[in-house]
Protein backbone atom coordinates (compact mmCIF):
# COMPACT_ATOMS: atom_id res chain seq x y z
CA UNK A 1 0.00 0.00 0.00
CA UNK A 2 1.65 3.19 -1.18
CA UNK A 3 0.57 6.26 -3.03
CA UNK A 4 1.76 6.15 -6.64
CA UNK A 5 1.50 9.01 -9.16
CA UNK A 6 0.54 8.23 -12.74
CA UNK A 7 -0.13 10.48 -15.70
CA UNK A 8 -3.45 9.94 -17.40
CA UNK A 9 -3.87 10.36 -21.15
CA UNK A 10 -7.62 9.87 -21.46
CA UNK A 11 -9.12 9.03 -24.87
CA UNK A 12 -11.04 12.04 -26.17
CA UNK A 13 -9.68 14.51 -23.61
CA UNK A 14 -7.22 17.29 -24.49
CA UNK A 15 -4.62 17.25 -21.72
CA UNK A 16 -2.51 14.94 -19.59
CA UNK A 17 -3.45 14.93 -15.92
CA UNK A 18 -1.82 13.83 -12.72
CA UNK A 19 -3.70 10.91 -11.15
CA UNK A 20 -2.61 9.58 -7.77
CA UNK A 21 -3.34 5.86 -7.37
CA UNK A 22 -2.30 3.14 -4.95
CA UNK A 23 0.24 0.42 -5.72
CA UNK A 24 -2.44 -2.14 -4.83
CA UNK A 25 -5.01 -0.70 -7.30
CA UNK A 26 -6.00 -2.86 -10.27
CA UNK A 27 -5.98 -1.51 -13.81
CA UNK A 28 -9.77 -1.20 -13.64
CA UNK A 29 -9.34 0.96 -10.56
CA UNK A 30 -6.66 3.05 -12.29
CA UNK A 31 -9.05 3.64 -15.19
CA UNK A 32 -11.81 4.64 -12.81
CA UNK A 33 -9.51 7.05 -10.98
CA UNK A 34 -8.50 8.65 -14.26
CA UNK A 35 -12.13 8.86 -15.43
CA UNK A 36 -12.99 11.04 -12.41
CA UNK A 37 -10.95 13.85 -13.95
CA UNK A 38 -12.17 13.52 -17.55
CA UNK A 39 -15.59 11.89 -17.86
CA UNK A 40 -18.46 14.29 -17.23
CA UNK A 41 -15.96 17.16 -17.24
CA UNK A 42 -14.72 17.32 -20.83
CA UNK A 43 -15.47 13.85 -22.15
CA UNK A 44 -18.94 12.32 -22.45
CA UNK A 45 -19.58 8.95 -20.85
CA UNK A 46 -19.93 6.13 -23.37
CA UNK A 47 -22.70 3.76 -22.33
CA UNK A 48 -21.88 0.19 -23.23
CA UNK A 49 -18.13 0.75 -22.95
CA UNK A 50 -15.58 -0.05 -20.31
CA UNK A 51 -12.22 1.63 -19.84
CA UNK A 52 -8.93 -0.15 -20.38
CA UNK A 53 -5.38 0.81 -19.52
CA UNK A 54 -2.30 0.51 -21.70
CA UNK A 55 1.19 1.90 -21.76
CA UNK A 56 1.64 4.76 -24.16
CA UNK A 57 2.37 3.36 -27.60
CA UNK A 58 1.43 -0.24 -26.69
CA UNK A 59 -1.14 -2.16 -28.72
CA UNK A 60 -2.26 -4.42 -25.91
CA UNK A 61 -4.15 -3.46 -22.79
CA UNK A 62 -2.83 -4.47 -19.43
CA UNK A 63 -4.96 -7.18 -17.74
CA UNK A 64 -7.91 -5.65 -15.90
CA UNK A 65 -6.99 -7.27 -12.61
CA UNK A 66 -3.27 -6.52 -12.80
CA UNK A 67 -2.06 -4.39 -9.90
CA UNK A 68 -0.06 -1.19 -10.26
CA UNK A 69 2.82 -2.76 -8.36
CA UNK A 70 2.89 -5.66 -10.86
CA UNK A 71 2.86 -3.40 -13.93
CA UNK A 72 6.32 -2.01 -13.17
CA UNK A 73 5.45 1.60 -13.94
CA UNK A 74 7.87 4.41 -13.23
CA UNK A 75 6.37 7.12 -11.02
CA UNK A 76 4.45 9.62 -13.24
CA UNK A 77 4.62 7.29 -16.26
CA UNK A 78 1.91 8.06 -18.79
CA UNK A 79 -0.85 5.52 -19.28
CA UNK A 80 -3.53 5.70 -21.94
CA UNK A 81 -7.10 5.16 -20.80
CA UNK A 82 -9.06 3.80 -23.75
CA UNK A 83 -12.74 3.09 -24.31
CA UNK A 84 -13.54 -0.54 -25.20
CA UNK A 85 -16.88 -2.12 -26.03
CA UNK A 86 -18.07 -3.93 -22.90
CA UNK A 87 -17.77 -7.73 -23.04
CA UNK A 88 -21.17 -9.40 -23.44
Amino acid at each position, binding site marked *: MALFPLTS*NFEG*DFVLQLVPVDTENTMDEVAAAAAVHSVGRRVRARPGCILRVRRQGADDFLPRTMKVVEAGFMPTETVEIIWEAAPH
Partner: protein
Amino acid sequence: MALLNRMDWYDLARSTNWTPSYVSDGELFPAELSGDYGLPQGAWEKYDEPYKQTYPEYVKVQREKDAGAYSVKAALERSRIFENADPGWKSVMKAHYGAIARGEYAAASAEARMMRFSPAPGMRNMATLGCLDEIRHGQMQLYFPHEHVSKDRQMDWAFKAYDTNEWAMIAARHFFDDIMMTRDAISVSIMLTFSFETGFTNMQFLGLAADAAEAGDHTFANLISSIQTDESRHAQIGGPALKILIENGKKEEAQRRVDIAVWGAWKLFSVLTGPIMDYYTPLEHRKQSFKEFMEEWIVAQFERALTDMGLELPWYWEQFLADLGETHHGMHLGSYYWRPTVWWNPAAGVTPQERAWLEEKYPGWNDTWGQCWDVIIDNVVDGNMAKAYPETLPYVCNMCQLPILGTPGKKWNVKDYPLEYKGRLYHFGSEVDRWVFQQEPERYAGHLSIVDRFLAGMIQPMDLSGALQYMNIAPGECGDDAHNYAWAEVYRAMRAQRNAG
Protein backbone atom coordinates in the same frame (compact mmCIF):
# COMPACT_ATOMS: atom_id res chain seq x y z
CA MET B 1 30.09 75.60 -33.42
CA ALA B 2 28.63 73.69 -36.33
CA LEU B 3 27.76 70.04 -35.67
CA LEU B 4 29.22 67.41 -37.95
CA ASN B 5 26.75 65.45 -40.01
CA ARG B 6 25.94 62.13 -38.42
CA MET B 7 27.57 60.01 -41.09
CA ASP B 8 30.79 62.02 -40.90
CA TRP B 9 31.56 60.62 -37.48
CA TYR B 10 29.20 57.71 -36.81
CA ASP B 11 31.37 54.95 -38.26
CA LEU B 12 34.48 56.15 -36.48
CA ALA B 13 32.73 56.55 -33.14
CA ARG B 14 31.00 53.20 -33.47
CA SER B 15 34.14 51.24 -34.21
CA THR B 16 36.24 52.88 -31.55
CA ASN B 17 37.35 49.95 -29.48
CA TRP B 18 39.36 49.46 -26.34
CA THR B 19 42.90 48.15 -26.44
CA PRO B 20 43.23 46.84 -22.92
CA SER B 21 46.63 47.00 -21.28
CA TYR B 22 45.92 46.39 -17.59
CA VAL B 23 43.73 43.35 -18.17
CA SER B 24 43.69 40.64 -20.81
CA ASP B 25 41.03 40.50 -23.55
CA GLY B 26 39.64 37.45 -21.82
CA GLU B 27 39.16 39.39 -18.62
CA LEU B 28 37.56 42.32 -20.39
CA PHE B 29 35.22 40.07 -22.36
CA PRO B 30 34.80 36.84 -20.37
CA ALA B 31 33.52 33.94 -22.47
CA GLU B 32 30.48 33.33 -20.25
CA LEU B 33 29.22 36.85 -20.86
CA SER B 34 30.64 37.72 -24.25
CA GLY B 35 30.29 34.37 -25.98
CA ASP B 36 32.90 31.83 -26.89
CA TYR B 37 32.79 31.44 -30.65
CA GLY B 38 36.53 31.55 -31.34
CA LEU B 39 36.23 34.48 -33.76
CA PRO B 40 39.01 37.08 -34.01
CA GLN B 41 38.16 40.54 -32.70
CA GLY B 42 38.48 41.88 -36.24
CA ALA B 43 35.49 39.76 -37.33
CA TRP B 44 33.25 41.43 -34.74
CA GLU B 45 34.41 44.89 -35.75
CA LYS B 46 32.70 44.29 -39.12
CA TYR B 47 29.31 44.26 -37.34
CA ASP B 48 27.12 46.67 -39.30
CA GLU B 49 23.71 47.52 -37.92
CA PRO B 50 21.05 48.31 -40.53
CA TYR B 51 19.40 50.94 -38.36
CA LYS B 52 21.69 53.77 -37.35
CA GLN B 53 20.77 56.23 -34.67
CA THR B 54 22.86 58.51 -32.50
CA TYR B 55 22.17 59.24 -28.87
CA PRO B 56 20.92 62.83 -29.46
CA GLU B 57 18.61 61.59 -32.21
CA TYR B 58 17.36 58.85 -29.93
CA VAL B 59 16.54 61.22 -27.09
CA LYS B 60 14.63 63.56 -29.38
CA VAL B 61 12.54 60.79 -30.97
CA GLN B 62 11.84 59.02 -27.67
CA ARG B 63 10.70 62.24 -26.05
CA GLU B 64 8.15 62.70 -28.82
CA LYS B 65 6.96 59.11 -28.51
CA ASP B 66 6.48 59.43 -24.76
CA ALA B 67 4.65 62.73 -25.16
CA GLY B 68 2.28 61.07 -27.64
CA ALA B 69 1.43 58.00 -25.56
CA TYR B 70 1.13 59.86 -22.25
CA SER B 71 -1.07 62.59 -23.71
CA VAL B 72 -3.52 60.02 -25.12
CA LYS B 73 -3.69 58.42 -21.69
CA ALA B 74 -4.23 61.78 -19.97
CA ALA B 75 -6.92 62.82 -22.45
CA LEU B 76 -8.84 59.55 -22.04
CA GLU B 77 -8.43 59.09 -18.30
CA ARG B 78 -11.97 60.28 -17.58
CA SER B 79 -13.53 58.41 -20.48
CA ARG B 80 -14.36 55.32 -18.40
CA ILE B 81 -13.15 53.05 -21.20
CA PHE B 82 -11.96 50.52 -18.65
CA GLU B 83 -15.19 50.58 -16.64
CA ASN B 84 -17.29 50.15 -19.75
CA ALA B 85 -15.06 47.64 -21.52
CA ASP B 86 -16.26 44.13 -22.18
CA PRO B 87 -14.96 41.87 -19.37
CA GLY B 88 -13.18 39.81 -22.02
CA TRP B 89 -11.20 42.88 -23.03
CA LYS B 90 -10.24 43.59 -19.41
CA SER B 91 -8.85 40.06 -19.28
CA VAL B 92 -6.74 40.80 -22.36
CA MET B 93 -5.19 43.77 -20.57
CA LYS B 94 -4.61 41.86 -17.34
CA ALA B 95 -2.97 38.91 -19.07
CA HIS B 96 -0.82 41.22 -21.20
CA TYR B 97 0.42 43.48 -18.40
CA GLY B 98 1.17 40.63 -16.00
CA ALA B 99 3.06 38.54 -18.52
CA ILE B 100 4.90 41.44 -20.18
CA ALA B 101 5.57 44.48 -17.96
CA ARG B 102 8.30 43.17 -15.65
CA GLY B 103 9.66 41.00 -18.46
CA GLU B 104 10.45 44.25 -20.26
CA TYR B 105 12.41 45.41 -17.27
CA ALA B 106 14.32 42.11 -17.25
CA ALA B 107 14.98 42.63 -20.97
CA ALA B 108 16.78 45.87 -20.02
CA SER B 109 19.33 43.75 -18.18
CA ALA B 110 19.73 41.47 -21.22
CA GLU B 111 20.28 44.55 -23.41
CA ALA B 112 22.75 45.81 -20.82
CA ARG B 113 24.71 42.59 -21.19
CA MET B 114 25.06 43.24 -24.94
CA MET B 115 25.89 46.88 -24.21
CA ARG B 116 28.82 45.97 -21.95
CA PHE B 117 29.98 42.54 -23.06
CA SER B 118 29.35 42.23 -26.77
CA PRO B 119 32.62 41.86 -28.67
CA ALA B 120 31.00 43.86 -31.51
CA PRO B 121 31.33 47.63 -30.92
CA GLY B 122 28.33 48.42 -33.15
CA MET B 123 26.19 46.09 -31.11
CA ARG B 124 27.23 47.79 -27.90
CA ASN B 125 26.01 51.08 -29.32
CA MET B 126 22.64 49.74 -30.45
CA ALA B 127 22.10 47.87 -27.22
CA THR B 128 22.66 51.07 -25.22
CA LEU B 129 19.55 52.45 -26.88
CA GLY B 130 17.83 49.07 -26.59
CA CYS B 131 18.44 49.03 -22.85
CA LEU B 132 16.85 52.46 -22.48
CA ASP B 133 13.94 51.23 -24.62
CA GLU B 134 13.27 48.32 -22.30
CA ILE B 135 13.41 50.49 -19.18
CA ARG B 136 10.82 52.70 -20.88
CA HIS B 137 8.61 49.70 -21.67
CA GLY B 138 8.79 48.42 -18.13
CA GLN B 139 7.93 51.81 -16.68
CA MET B 140 5.06 52.58 -19.06
CA GLN B 141 3.44 49.19 -18.72
CA LEU B 142 3.48 49.56 -14.94
CA TYR B 143 2.32 53.18 -14.95
CA PHE B 144 -0.57 52.70 -17.39
CA PRO B 145 -2.31 49.84 -15.54
CA HIS B 146 -1.73 51.50 -12.18
CA GLU B 147 -4.75 53.78 -12.55
CA HIS B 148 -6.92 50.63 -12.58
CA VAL B 149 -5.46 48.91 -9.52
CA SER B 150 -7.90 50.60 -7.15
CA LYS B 151 -10.82 49.42 -9.30
CA ASP B 152 -9.78 45.82 -9.77
CA ARG B 153 -7.39 43.75 -7.66
CA GLN B 154 -6.36 41.58 -10.59
CA MET B 155 -4.75 44.64 -12.19
CA ASP B 156 -2.19 44.51 -9.37
CA TRP B 157 -0.71 41.52 -11.19
CA ALA B 158 0.85 43.91 -13.71
CA PHE B 159 3.50 44.36 -11.05
CA LYS B 160 3.06 41.25 -8.97
CA ALA B 161 3.01 38.44 -11.52
CA TYR B 162 6.77 37.99 -11.95
CA ASP B 163 7.29 37.61 -8.20
CA THR B 164 4.92 34.66 -7.97
CA ASN B 165 4.94 30.92 -8.64
CA GLU B 166 1.73 31.16 -10.63
CA TRP B 167 2.05 28.43 -13.29
CA ALA B 168 1.92 30.68 -16.37
CA MET B 169 4.55 32.90 -14.77
CA ILE B 170 6.80 29.91 -14.10
CA ALA B 171 6.48 29.22 -17.82
CA ALA B 172 7.23 32.83 -18.80
CA ARG B 173 10.23 33.03 -16.47
CA HIS B 174 11.59 29.67 -17.64
CA PHE B 175 11.53 30.90 -21.24
CA PHE B 176 12.94 34.37 -20.63
CA ASP B 177 15.58 33.03 -18.25
CA ASP B 178 16.63 30.62 -20.99
CA ILE B 179 16.84 33.05 -23.91
CA MET B 180 17.89 36.32 -22.28
CA MET B 181 18.88 36.14 -18.61
CA THR B 182 21.39 33.26 -18.75
CA ARG B 183 23.01 33.58 -22.16
CA ASP B 184 26.09 35.36 -23.46
CA ALA B 185 25.70 38.69 -25.28
CA ILE B 186 25.84 37.19 -28.78
CA SER B 187 23.29 34.49 -27.91
CA VAL B 188 21.00 37.16 -26.45
CA SER B 189 21.21 39.07 -29.71
CA ILE B 190 20.16 35.94 -31.63
CA MET B 191 17.60 34.51 -29.22
CA LEU B 192 15.98 37.62 -27.77
CA THR B 193 16.24 40.22 -30.49
CA PHE B 194 16.31 38.23 -33.73
CA SER B 195 14.19 35.21 -32.81
CA PHE B 196 11.75 36.56 -30.26
CA GLU B 197 11.41 40.25 -31.10
CA THR B 198 11.57 40.13 -34.91
CA GLY B 199 9.11 37.30 -35.02
CA PHE B 200 6.86 37.40 -32.03
CA THR B 201 6.66 40.78 -30.32
CA ASN B 202 5.48 42.25 -33.62
CA MET B 203 2.58 39.89 -33.36
CA GLN B 204 1.69 40.68 -29.75
CA PHE B 205 2.10 44.43 -30.10
CA LEU B 206 0.77 45.12 -33.59
CA GLY B 207 -1.88 42.41 -33.58
CA LEU B 208 -3.14 43.42 -30.18
CA ALA B 209 -2.98 47.12 -31.06
CA ALA B 210 -5.32 46.40 -33.96
CA ASP B 211 -7.77 44.60 -31.67
CA ALA B 212 -7.47 47.38 -29.05
CA ALA B 213 -8.28 50.08 -31.58
CA GLU B 214 -11.30 48.04 -32.72
CA ALA B 215 -12.40 47.69 -29.10
CA GLY B 216 -12.12 51.47 -28.62
CA ASP B 217 -9.25 51.21 -26.14
CA HIS B 218 -7.11 53.93 -27.72
CA THR B 219 -4.89 54.34 -24.67
CA PHE B 220 -3.79 50.72 -24.84
CA ALA B 221 -3.56 50.75 -28.65
CA ASN B 222 -1.31 53.84 -28.55
CA LEU B 223 0.81 52.50 -25.73
CA ILE B 224 1.64 49.23 -27.37
CA SER B 225 2.18 50.66 -30.84
CA SER B 226 4.55 53.21 -29.31
CA ILE B 227 6.47 50.34 -27.69
CA GLN B 228 6.56 48.42 -30.93
CA THR B 229 8.38 51.27 -32.73
CA ASP B 230 11.26 50.71 -30.28
CA GLU B 231 11.09 46.95 -30.65
CA SER B 232 11.30 47.09 -34.42
CA ARG B 233 14.53 49.10 -34.08
CA HIS B 234 16.34 47.09 -31.44
CA ALA B 235 15.06 43.78 -32.84
CA GLN B 236 17.66 44.41 -35.57
CA ILE B 237 20.57 43.90 -33.17
CA GLY B 238 20.77 40.17 -33.85
CA GLY B 239 20.80 40.13 -37.65
CA PRO B 240 24.33 41.47 -38.22
CA ALA B 241 25.68 39.16 -35.50
CA LEU B 242 24.11 36.17 -37.25
CA LYS B 243 25.71 37.32 -40.49
CA ILE B 244 29.16 37.39 -38.87
CA LEU B 245 28.69 33.95 -37.34
CA ILE B 246 27.56 32.46 -40.64
CA GLU B 247 30.41 34.08 -42.59
CA ASN B 248 32.85 32.62 -40.11
CA GLY B 249 31.60 29.06 -40.29
CA LYS B 250 29.40 29.12 -37.19
CA LYS B 251 26.06 28.59 -38.90
CA GLU B 252 25.23 25.47 -36.93
CA GLU B 253 25.62 27.21 -33.56
CA ALA B 254 23.57 30.16 -34.81
CA GLN B 255 20.84 27.94 -36.22
CA ARG B 256 20.52 25.96 -33.00
CA ARG B 257 19.98 29.13 -30.98
CA VAL B 258 17.31 30.33 -33.40
CA ASP B 259 15.55 26.96 -33.34
CA ILE B 260 15.46 26.84 -29.53
CA ALA B 261 14.23 30.42 -29.10
CA VAL B 262 11.57 30.32 -31.82
CA TRP B 263 9.99 27.20 -30.36
CA GLY B 264 9.87 28.57 -26.83
CA ALA B 265 8.42 31.84 -28.08
CA TRP B 266 5.77 29.94 -29.99
CA LYS B 267 4.69 27.97 -26.94
CA LEU B 268 4.46 31.10 -24.81
CA PHE B 269 2.40 32.86 -27.47
CA SER B 270 0.11 29.88 -27.81
CA VAL B 271 -0.98 30.35 -24.19
CA LEU B 272 -0.83 34.13 -23.96
CA THR B 273 -1.80 35.53 -27.34
CA GLY B 274 -3.84 32.70 -28.84
CA PRO B 275 -6.66 32.70 -26.27
CA ILE B 276 -6.92 36.49 -26.11
CA MET B 277 -7.19 36.86 -29.87
CA ASP B 278 -9.57 33.98 -30.59
CA TYR B 279 -11.65 33.84 -27.41
CA TYR B 280 -11.34 36.93 -25.14
CA THR B 281 -11.51 39.74 -27.69
CA PRO B 282 -15.22 40.34 -28.35
CA LEU B 283 -16.21 38.75 -31.64
CA GLU B 284 -17.12 42.02 -33.33
CA HIS B 285 -13.69 43.48 -32.56
CA ARG B 286 -11.56 40.62 -33.90
CA LYS B 287 -9.48 41.76 -36.85
CA GLN B 288 -8.07 38.38 -37.81
CA SER B 289 -7.80 34.99 -36.19
CA PHE B 290 -4.67 34.14 -34.21
CA LYS B 291 -3.70 31.71 -36.97
CA GLU B 292 -4.09 34.40 -39.61
CA PHE B 293 -1.97 36.82 -37.57
CA MET B 294 0.66 34.13 -37.08
CA GLU B 295 0.69 33.26 -40.75
CA GLU B 296 1.14 36.89 -41.71
CA TRP B 297 3.71 37.89 -39.10
CA ILE B 298 5.61 34.73 -38.41
CA VAL B 299 5.21 32.51 -41.41
CA ALA B 300 5.40 35.12 -44.18
CA GLN B 301 7.67 37.75 -42.64
CA PHE B 302 9.85 35.80 -40.26
CA GLU B 303 10.38 33.00 -42.75
CA ARG B 304 11.79 35.56 -45.17
CA ALA B 305 14.00 37.08 -42.46
CA LEU B 306 15.46 33.63 -41.81
CA THR B 307 16.14 32.70 -45.38
CA ASP B 308 17.48 36.17 -46.30
CA MET B 309 19.95 35.67 -43.49
CA GLY B 310 21.17 32.41 -45.00
CA LEU B 311 19.63 30.32 -42.25
CA GLU B 312 17.39 27.30 -42.69
CA LEU B 313 13.82 27.12 -41.49
CA PRO B 314 13.83 25.38 -38.11
CA TRP B 315 13.82 21.59 -38.57
CA TYR B 316 10.36 21.38 -36.95
CA TRP B 317 8.72 23.93 -39.31
CA GLU B 318 6.10 21.47 -40.65
CA GLN B 319 5.08 20.60 -37.10
CA PHE B 320 4.95 24.29 -36.20
CA LEU B 321 2.67 25.10 -39.14
CA ALA B 322 0.31 22.28 -38.19
CA ASP B 323 0.30 23.38 -34.54
CA LEU B 324 -0.75 26.93 -35.50
CA GLY B 325 -4.30 25.69 -35.88
CA GLU B 326 -4.31 23.52 -32.77
CA THR B 327 -2.14 24.25 -29.73
CA HIS B 328 -3.73 27.51 -28.59
CA HIS B 329 -7.23 25.99 -28.53
CA GLY B 330 -5.95 23.54 -25.93
CA MET B 331 -4.13 26.31 -24.05
CA HIS B 332 -7.40 28.24 -23.89
CA LEU B 333 -9.43 25.24 -22.79
CA GLY B 334 -6.80 24.53 -20.11
CA SER B 335 -6.57 28.05 -18.74
CA TYR B 336 -10.37 28.27 -18.76
CA TYR B 337 -10.92 24.96 -17.00
CA TRP B 338 -8.18 25.72 -14.44
CA ARG B 339 -9.35 29.36 -14.23
CA PRO B 340 -8.95 29.76 -10.44
CA THR B 341 -5.19 29.52 -11.06
CA VAL B 342 -4.85 32.57 -13.32
CA TRP B 343 -4.92 36.28 -12.41
CA TRP B 344 -7.45 37.24 -15.01
CA ASN B 345 -10.98 36.08 -15.77
CA PRO B 346 -10.92 33.97 -18.93
CA ALA B 347 -13.76 34.58 -21.33
CA ALA B 348 -15.16 31.25 -22.52
CA GLY B 349 -15.80 32.59 -26.03
CA VAL B 350 -18.07 29.72 -27.05
CA THR B 351 -21.49 31.19 -27.80
CA PRO B 352 -23.10 29.73 -30.93
CA GLN B 353 -21.94 32.74 -33.00
CA GLU B 354 -18.42 32.48 -31.63
CA ARG B 355 -18.38 28.76 -32.36
CA ALA B 356 -19.48 29.44 -35.92
CA TRP B 357 -16.54 31.86 -36.24
CA LEU B 358 -14.16 29.27 -34.77
CA GLU B 359 -15.48 26.59 -37.13
CA GLU B 360 -15.00 28.92 -40.09
CA LYS B 361 -11.43 29.87 -39.07
CA TYR B 362 -10.50 26.38 -37.87
CA PRO B 363 -12.57 23.79 -39.77
CA GLY B 364 -13.27 20.82 -37.51
CA TRP B 365 -13.30 22.87 -34.29
CA ASN B 366 -16.75 21.60 -33.28
CA ASP B 367 -15.75 17.95 -33.65
CA THR B 368 -12.65 18.39 -31.55
CA TRP B 369 -12.39 21.16 -28.94
CA GLY B 370 -16.11 21.72 -29.37
CA GLN B 371 -16.75 18.24 -27.98
CA CYS B 372 -15.00 19.11 -24.71
CA TRP B 373 -16.83 22.44 -24.55
CA ASP B 374 -20.18 20.66 -25.08
CA VAL B 375 -19.66 18.86 -21.77
CA ILE B 376 -18.57 22.05 -20.00
CA ILE B 377 -21.60 23.93 -21.38
CA ASP B 378 -23.95 21.16 -20.21
CA ASN B 379 -22.50 21.37 -16.70
CA VAL B 380 -22.87 25.15 -16.60
CA VAL B 381 -26.45 24.99 -17.91
CA ASP B 382 -27.30 22.25 -15.39
CA GLY B 383 -25.71 24.21 -12.55
CA ASN B 384 -23.36 21.27 -12.06
CA MET B 385 -20.49 23.61 -11.28
CA ALA B 386 -18.43 21.10 -9.28
CA LYS B 387 -17.75 19.36 -12.60
CA ALA B 388 -16.90 22.64 -14.30
CA TYR B 389 -13.77 23.05 -12.13
CA PRO B 390 -10.73 20.77 -11.87
CA GLU B 391 -9.78 18.43 -9.03
CA THR B 392 -6.26 17.60 -10.10
CA LEU B 393 -3.30 19.17 -11.89
CA PRO B 394 -2.73 19.06 -15.61
CA TYR B 395 0.64 17.48 -16.35
CA VAL B 396 3.03 20.16 -17.56
CA CYS B 397 6.02 20.01 -19.91
CA ASN B 398 9.48 20.03 -18.36
CA MET B 399 10.62 22.47 -21.06
CA CYS B 400 7.88 25.02 -21.79
CA GLN B 401 6.22 24.43 -18.37
CA LEU B 402 2.79 24.50 -20.03
CA PRO B 403 0.19 21.73 -20.01
CA ILE B 404 0.97 18.74 -22.24
CA LEU B 405 -1.94 18.75 -24.64
CA GLY B 406 -3.20 17.90 -28.09
CA THR B 407 -6.37 17.73 -30.10
CA PRO B 408 -9.35 16.13 -28.33
CA GLY B 409 -12.61 14.63 -29.53
CA LYS B 410 -12.83 12.91 -32.88
CA LYS B 411 -9.22 13.71 -33.79
CA TRP B 412 -7.76 12.73 -30.43
CA ASN B 413 -3.96 12.85 -30.75
CA VAL B 414 -2.74 13.75 -27.25
CA LYS B 415 0.69 12.32 -26.54
CA ASP B 416 3.45 12.47 -23.97
CA TYR B 417 7.08 12.79 -25.06
CA PRO B 418 8.95 11.28 -22.11
CA LEU B 419 12.68 11.09 -21.47
CA GLU B 420 14.55 9.33 -18.72
CA TYR B 421 17.65 11.28 -17.75
CA LYS B 422 19.88 10.29 -14.84
CA GLY B 423 17.11 8.27 -13.22
CA ARG B 424 14.46 10.96 -13.42
CA LEU B 425 11.49 10.73 -15.76
CA TYR B 426 10.89 13.98 -17.63
CA HIS B 427 7.75 14.73 -19.63
CA PHE B 428 7.55 16.98 -22.67
CA GLY B 429 4.68 18.36 -24.68
CA SER B 430 6.28 17.78 -28.08
CA GLU B 431 9.23 16.29 -29.89
CA VAL B 432 10.68 19.80 -30.10
CA ASP B 433 10.47 20.53 -26.37
CA ARG B 434 12.28 17.25 -25.74
CA TRP B 435 14.88 18.11 -28.41
CA VAL B 436 15.60 21.44 -26.71
CA PHE B 437 16.26 19.61 -23.45
CA GLN B 438 18.58 17.16 -25.19
CA GLN B 439 20.70 19.96 -26.65
CA GLU B 440 22.03 20.76 -23.18
CA PRO B 441 20.43 18.51 -20.54
CA GLU B 442 22.39 19.86 -17.58
CA ARG B 443 21.16 23.37 -18.34
CA TYR B 444 17.56 22.31 -17.69
CA ALA B 445 17.67 19.08 -15.67
CA GLY B 446 17.58 20.65 -12.20
CA HIS B 447 14.42 22.66 -12.76
CA LEU B 448 11.22 21.49 -11.09
CA SER B 449 7.94 22.03 -12.90
CA ILE B 450 4.90 22.92 -10.83
CA VAL B 451 3.84 19.25 -10.92
CA ASP B 452 7.31 18.17 -9.77
CA ARG B 453 7.03 20.65 -6.91
CA PHE B 454 3.62 19.31 -5.99
CA LEU B 455 4.90 15.73 -5.97
CA ALA B 456 7.92 16.81 -3.90
CA GLY B 457 5.54 18.08 -1.21
CA MET B 458 6.44 21.73 -1.74
CA ILE B 459 2.77 22.69 -2.14
CA GLN B 460 0.82 22.28 1.09
CA PRO B 461 -1.92 21.44 1.76
CA MET B 462 -2.03 19.32 -1.41
CA ASP B 463 -5.29 20.78 -2.69
CA LEU B 464 -6.59 23.88 -4.48
CA SER B 465 -6.22 26.12 -1.42
CA GLY B 466 -2.59 25.04 -1.05
CA ALA B 467 -1.99 25.54 -4.76
CA LEU B 468 -3.49 29.05 -4.72
CA GLN B 469 -1.39 29.95 -1.71
CA TYR B 470 1.73 28.59 -3.40
CA MET B 471 0.95 30.64 -6.50
CA ASN B 472 0.40 33.84 -4.40
CA ILE B 473 -3.17 34.15 -5.65
CA ALA B 474 -4.96 36.07 -2.92
CA PRO B 475 -8.73 35.97 -2.37
CA GLY B 476 -10.34 38.36 -4.85
CA GLU B 477 -7.58 37.73 -7.36
CA CYS B 478 -8.25 34.24 -8.62
CA GLY B 479 -9.86 33.94 -12.01
CA ASP B 480 -13.39 32.94 -12.85
CA ASP B 481 -15.58 33.21 -15.95
CA ALA B 482 -15.21 36.75 -17.36
CA HIS B 483 -18.93 37.15 -18.00
CA ASN B 484 -20.10 35.30 -14.92
CA TYR B 485 -21.55 32.61 -17.25
CA ALA B 486 -24.05 35.00 -18.85
CA TRP B 487 -23.09 33.44 -22.21
CA ALA B 488 -24.69 30.17 -21.08
CA GLU B 489 -28.16 31.74 -21.11
CA VAL B 490 -28.49 31.21 -24.84
CA TYR B 491 -27.77 27.50 -24.37
CA ARG B 492 -30.29 27.34 -21.52
CA ALA B 493 -32.89 28.90 -23.81
CA MET B 494 -32.00 26.52 -26.63
CA ARG B 495 -32.47 23.57 -24.31
CA ALA B 496 -35.81 24.88 -23.01
CA GLN B 497 -36.98 25.28 -26.59
CA ARG B 498 -35.84 21.75 -27.46
CA ASN B 499 -37.61 20.31 -24.43
CA ALA B 500 -40.80 22.23 -25.26
CA GLY B 501 -40.70 21.18 -28.91
